[in-house]
């Protein structure tokens, strides 16, 4: 198999001592930052972006691989011990895992999360190894019409799945699309919506928007809430689980992986759907359904595995099509662009050492994370003890540093703060911020592909339905648009129906 040879080549690169060191540093920093309450994987990657500026691209991406997976591991520890999910993918872990921890089973919850993440992460990475090159070949025949249809499909699912109501997800998405409009129009070369400010000619950087929405918005939100004491569950010693726990965990791990990778890998992406699905399935299949909601180990094992497998899956459209389908992936894309690299089908042939080094280090990073997390969990948990004033003071200093160092511009920092205030209002009103981040990245791509398509067809809109791939993708998008409000309507009818 060609993939295997290329993977071996990747390992050759990733196992070089200095690259191993970067991978280790990546998982270490990723776990440490990801564990901090209120910091999800997206913010972890965004805050650690400046650390890699001085590195050569291959080492930088090996480090990113570690940060990405490390942030996921760290997030699950926080969810279990503190019940503060850093992102929507670990909401379930927070529900079920925290209940387990409260009833004295923190160690088993952490162990099943870590082992499940390892199993799912490794299987997901194996799948990525073989699916990505195949999809990259396929993607070479994709024209602008297909790209546009893919992005539209992504928009519909992202907006309708996230958030309390589809309206709020949609509002967030269009806000992001609006931010994405700012800057020079690539086709005609004129400035749009820059308010005459030269600093806005290049548009908003995704890090400015993501750090503002996630870090500043969250800090403002927490600072203005009543300061209750957070209950942290203490643990000591190695985290491990009993034979019985293992027996109850391994099937959910595998099922979670099977759900997570394909759904995460779809252009509609995301980690929410697979974790929720996995929870529902485990609940149905479990021999202890009564434990669900009170700390069932299957309810941690399955969703955690699904979350990590989906994280590997998200890398498929990112690497092969250049399409980010989660907020974290949008920031990873920005990281590529920072090094003047454009992920997509061509990068597999133009920068094989980078892509395969990155994929190989995903395996290595996953293994390192297992070693770091099982014995050292109590040590990591101590990071949760950092008092809130110091924690958020530190987060904002790093947010400022990261934003400033993008272009050495105070203007960017100001914009980041402004967007943060918007993020605060969104947080207060239950509007999800992730669609805004994804929208501002995908919006300009969608516009460009749309206009390119119509330039090719000389203005004939029927090109989108004449091409089978784009027609079916757009058809799917229409289905999502109709199905989600319909499902909500049916649910409401059932709730209000007379009993």
């Amino acid at each position: 198999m060609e993939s295997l040879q290329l993977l071996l080549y990747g390992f050759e690169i990733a196992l070089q001592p200095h690259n191993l060191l970067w991978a280790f540093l990546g998982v270490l920093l990723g776990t440490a930052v990801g564990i901090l309450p209120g910091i999800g994987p997206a913010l972890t990657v965004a805050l650690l972006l400046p650390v890699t500026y001085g590195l050569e691209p291959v080492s930088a991406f090996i480090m990113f691989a570690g940060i990405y997976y490390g942030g996921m591991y760290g997030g699950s520890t926080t969810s279990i011990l503190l019940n503060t999910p850093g992102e929507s993918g670990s909401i379930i872990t927070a529900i079920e895992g925290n209940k387990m921890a409260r009833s004295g089973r923190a160690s088993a919850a952490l162990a099943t999360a870590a082992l499940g993440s390892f199993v799912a992460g490794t299987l997901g990475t194996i799948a990525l190894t073989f699916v990505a090159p195949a999809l990259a070949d396929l993607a070479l025949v994709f024209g602008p019409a297909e790209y546009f249809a893919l992005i539209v499909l992504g928009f519909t699912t992202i907006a309708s799945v996230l958030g309390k109501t589809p309206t709020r997800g949609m509002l967030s998405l269009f806000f992001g699309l609006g931010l994405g409009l700012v800057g020079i129009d690539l086709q005609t070369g004129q400035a749009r919506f820059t308010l005459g400010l030269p600093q806005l000619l290049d548009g908003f950087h995704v890090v400015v928007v993501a750090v503002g929405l996630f870090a500043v918005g969250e800090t403002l939100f927490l600072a203005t809430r009543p300061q209750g004491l957070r209950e942290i569950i203490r643990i000591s010693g190695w985290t491990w689980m009993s034979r019985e726990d293992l027996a109850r965990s391994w099937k959910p791990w595998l099922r979670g992986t099977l759900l997570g990778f394909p759904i995460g890998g779809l252009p509609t992406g995301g980690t929410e759907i697979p974790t929720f699905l996995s929870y529902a399935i485990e609940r149905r299949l479990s021999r202890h359904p009564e434990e669900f909601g009170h700390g069932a180990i299957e309810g941690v094992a399955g969703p955690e595995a699904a979350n990590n497998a989906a994280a590997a899956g998200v890398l498929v459209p990112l690497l092969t099509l250049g399409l980010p389908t989660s907020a974290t992936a949008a920031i990873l894309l920005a990281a590529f662009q920072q090094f003047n690299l454009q992920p997509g089908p061509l990068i597999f042939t133009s920068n094989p050492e980078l892509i395969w080094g990155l994929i190989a280090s995903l395996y290595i990073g996953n293994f390192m994370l297992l070693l770091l997390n099982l014995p050292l969990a109590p040590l990591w948990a101590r990071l949760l003890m950092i008092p809130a004033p110091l924690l958020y003071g530190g987060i904002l200093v790093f947010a400022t540093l990261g934003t400033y160092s993008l272009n050495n511009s105070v203007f960017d920092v100001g914009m980041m703060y402004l967007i943060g205030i918007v993020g605060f209002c969104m947080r207060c009103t239950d509007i999800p911020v992730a669609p805004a981040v994804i929208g501002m990245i995908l919006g300009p791509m969608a516009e460009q592909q749309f206009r390119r398509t119509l330039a090719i067809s000389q203005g004939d809109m029927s090109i989108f339905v004449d091409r089978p791939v784009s027609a079916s993708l757009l058809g799917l998008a229409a289905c999502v648009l109709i199905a989600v409000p319909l499902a909500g309507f049916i649910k409401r009818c059932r709730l209000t129906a007379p009993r």
Partner: protein
Amino acid sequence: MQQDKSVDKMELGIASGAILLGLFILFDSLGIKLGSGYDRIGPRFFPYVVASGLLISGALMLVEILRSSVVRHEAESLNKTSFVILLSGLVSCLILLKPAGFIVAATVQFWLIARAFSNANPLRDAIIAALLSISVYFIFTSGLGLVLPRGILTGLI
């Protein structure tokens, strides 16, 4: 009930903000020059789509807010003092970053933001703020090659 209203006000604000943003994009689009004849879909088309999206979702959210009769289960009150202190932490950093340098700006920002959360240990927080800012400065400039403003400490570091 008082607090419920304040959250509702914010929801109304967000919804009308989206509508205003949509209107702004709509009107500002009129100033965009249309491209040549080859460009069938001009540079105004997408802004129109985004503007209508904002107008529609803003309007839908307004309807949602006005129609919802659900009483919020969690009465949350905004701590205005914390909000103002935190904002001052942000603004002071913007003002200080270039003239006073990263170390001073970050120390002030860290300290002010800590104040927004708790006023318990001002001295401890100040010491930690300074130590963190100094070590971050040196790790990122000497260690990782970033350029951060030196400001008033130019001669010293």
